C-alpha cells in the first residue's frame, strides 16, 4: 500500500479511537444542556467511570460488570450535581467543579488503596469485534468495522440520541425545559424531574465514556487518565450545536485534531508549525463556533439558570 494511504488510515483509526469515548459521554451531556443544566463535572464523571470500570472488571473478570460499575458510579456523581443544581438551585459551575475535584481525589486515593499492588497488570477489556461481511470491505471495513465494542456504540448512540431528542414527546419536553420551562410547567410537567432525568443520563453516559477510555484500550488505570476529554465534550457540544448526532461528528473532528498533532512529526509539519498550535486547534475551533464564525450557534435559552417557578 502507498505510504500516504497508510498514514491517512492510521490517522483516521486513531481519530476514531479518541473520539468514541468522548462521543459516548457527549450524548448524555447534550441532553442535560438542552434541558438547561450545565455540567462541567463531566470530566470528573468520566474519570470516576474510568476507574470503576477497571475496578469492576478486575474483581469480577467481567467487562460487562466493569461497564455497569462505571455507569453506576457516573450516575451517583450526577445525582450530587442534580441535587445541588436542581433541588438547591445552586451555582452549576461550582457543583461541577466540586465533582471534578472529588473525582481526582477519590480515584487516586482508591487506586492506591485497592489496586496499588497491581502495578501494570491489565484487566479484561473490550474485545475487538469484526462485523460479518462489512469488515471485508477494503479500507472502510478495516477502518470502521474491526473495532472494539464501544466504538460501535459510539456510532449508534448519537444517532439514537438525536432521534429521541427530536422525534419523541420526551425529547420535546427536554428541549422545552431548557427553552421555556414555564411552558413545561403549564403543561403540568415537572421541570425539575426532567432535569433530574437528563443529568442522570449524562452521568450514566459519562461513566460509560470513562469506561471506554480505560477498558477500551490500555486496560489499566492511571492518574487523571481522562486527560481533559470531559472538557472536549463541552467543546464538541458547542460545535455540534446541541444536536447529539452533530456532536458525535464534532467529537470525531476533535479526535482528528488530537491524532494529527501526535502524527504531525512524521509529516515534517512540526518544522513549519510547532505542535502546540495543533493542540490549541480544538479549543480555538470551539471559541470560533461560539463566536458565530462557524455558522450560527444558539445555546438553549435557559442554560445554566436555575428554574424558579415563581418568576414567571
Amino acid at each position: 500500500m502507498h505510504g500516504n494511504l497508510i498514514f491517512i488510515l492510521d490517522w483516521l483509526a486513531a481519530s476514531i479511537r479518541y473520539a468514541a469515548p468522548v462521543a459516548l459521554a457527549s450524548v448524555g451531556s447534550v441532553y442535560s444542556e438542552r434541558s438547561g443544566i450545565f455540567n462541567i463535572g463531566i470530566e470528573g464523571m468520566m474519570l470516576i467511570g474510568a476507574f470503576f470500570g477497571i475496578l469492576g472488571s478486575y474483581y469480577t473478570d467481567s467487562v460487562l460488570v466493569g461497564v455497569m460499575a462505571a455507569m453506576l458510579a457516573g450516575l451517583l456523581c450526577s445525582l450530587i450535581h442534580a441535587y445541588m443544581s436542581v433541588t438547591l438551585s445552586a451555582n452549576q459551575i461550582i457543583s461541577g467543579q466540586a465533582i471534578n475535584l472529588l473525582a481526582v481525589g477519590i480515584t487516586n486515593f482508591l487506586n492506591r488503596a485497592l489496586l496499588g499492588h497491581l502495578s501494570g497488570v491489565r484487566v479484561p477489556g473490550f474485545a475487538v469485534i469484526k462485523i460479518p461481511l462489512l469488515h471485508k470491505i477494503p479500507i472502510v471495513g478495516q477502518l470502521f468495522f474491526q473495532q472494539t465494542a464501544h466504538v460501535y456504540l459510539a456510532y449508534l448512540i448519537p444517532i439514537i440520541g438525536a432521534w429521541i431528542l427530536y422525534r419523541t414527546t420526551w425529547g420535546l419536553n427536554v428541549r422545552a425545559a431548557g427553552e421555556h420551562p414555564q411552558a413545561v410547567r403549564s403543561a403540568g410537567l415537572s421541570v425539575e424531574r426532567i432535569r433530574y432525568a437528563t443529568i442522570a443520563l449524562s452521568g450514566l453516559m459519562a461513566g460509560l465514556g470513562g469506561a471506554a477510555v480505560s477498558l477500551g484500550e490500555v486496560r489499566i488505570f492511571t492518574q487523571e487518565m481522562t486527560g481533559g476529554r470531559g472538557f472536549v465534550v463541552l467543546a464538541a457540544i458547542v460545535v455540534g450545536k446541541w444536536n447529539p448526532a452533530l456532536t458525535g461528528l464534532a467529537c470525531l473532528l476533535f479526535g482528528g485534531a488530537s491524532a494529527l498533532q501526535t502524527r504531525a512529526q512524521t509529516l515534517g509539519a512540526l518544522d513549519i508549525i510547532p505542535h502546540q498550535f495543533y493542540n490549541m486547534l480544538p479549543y480555538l475551533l470551539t471559541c470560533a463556533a461560539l463566536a458565530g464564525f462557524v455558522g450560527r450557534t444558539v445555546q438553549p435559552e435557559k442554560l445554566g439558570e436555575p428554574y424558579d417557578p415563581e418568576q414567571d
Partner: protein
Amino acid sequence: MNSWSLKGALQKAKDIIVGPIIAIALALLLAGILIYFSGYEPLAAYGALFKGSVGNINSLAVTGVRMTPLLLGGLAVAMSFSCGVSNIGIEGQLYLGAVGATIVGLMPLPVPQWLHLLLVLAAGFVFGALWATVPGYLYAYKGVNEVVLTLMLNYVAIYLVSYLTNTVYGPLGEKGASYSQSPELVSTARLPILLKGSSLHVGLLVGIVLAIALYIFMNHTSSGFRLRMVGFNPHAAEYAGIPMERTRMQIMLLSGGLAGIAGASEVAGLFHRLYANFSPGYGFDAIAVSLLAGNNPLAVILSSAFYGALRAGATRMQQVIGIEVSIVFIIQAFTILFVTAGTVLSHRPSVIKKLFRFSKKSPAEGRG
C-alpha cells in the same frame, strides 16, 4: 450598606465564618472516615497535616507560598462571581499574566527595584486582562456563553506558554535547557523574600493589600456598587441606566487582570522564570477558594490560607503516614459541596423539612 456599626460588622463576620467552619468540619470528618477505612489512623494523619502546615515557622512559610496564588486567583474569581460573571478562565489569564511578567522581568531596565517590580506586576495585570478581552467582548456585547469560552481559552493559554518557553523555537525559551523554561529574571525583577531561608515572598503581601483594596472598592465605592448591581439585579441595573455591556466588559477585564497578577507573582516571587505548565490548576482551585469565602475579598484571605495549609500539610502527611496527597482534593470537594448546600439551606430554613422534595423557591443567589 453605609450604616456601619460594630454589632453589624460582627454579625456579618459571624455569618461569613460559621457556615464554612461547619462545612470544613464535616468535610474533615468524612475524609477521616475514608482514611480510617483505608487502614490509617485519622488523628495521626490530621496531626501530620497540621504539623506540616502550621506546626512551625518553616511549615507556615510553605503554607504562605502555597496560599499566595490561591489568594490572588481567588480575588479574580470573587471579582467576577460577585458581579454575576462566571469567569472560569482564571487559569489561562494567570498563565498570560506570567508571560507579561516574564517579558518585563527579563529586561534589564535602568530603574530602581521597586519600580521594576511594579512594572512586572502591572505587566501581569495587563496581559491577564488582555487574555480576557476577547471572551469579555463576546460575552458582554454578543451575549456568548462566557463559561465555555473562558474555559477553552485556558487550554489555549497553557499550550501558548509551552510554545513560548520551548527551548528550541520558543521566543522566550532558554536555549539548551532540559525543561521548557525561560531564562532567569534580572535581579531587580524578583520579589523580595519575606522570611530568610524560605521561599515566602512579597507576593503574599501584595495579595493581602489587593484583598483589602478590592473589598473597599466593591463595598464602599459607587463604582463597585455599580459593578455588583449588574450581577445581583440586572433588571434594576438596566433600569437605573447602567450600561450593561460596558460594565460586564469591565468586570471581565478586572477579573482577568487580578488573575494575571497571580501568575506574575509566581514568576517574580517563586520561580524567577517562566516554566511550561507551572500552575497545578491554581485557576481552578481559586474557584473553590472564592466560594468558601462567599466571594468576599477579605474572607478570601482566610479561605486561601486554609487551602494553602491543606496543600502544604498534605505533602508531610504523605511522607509521614503514607496517605495519598489527593485526599486533599476530597476534602476540598466536600467543603465546596457543604458550603454551597449550607448557604442555600440557611436561606430557606424550612427546606430541612422537605429536604427530599423538589424546590419550590429559588434562593437569592442564583447563577454567578
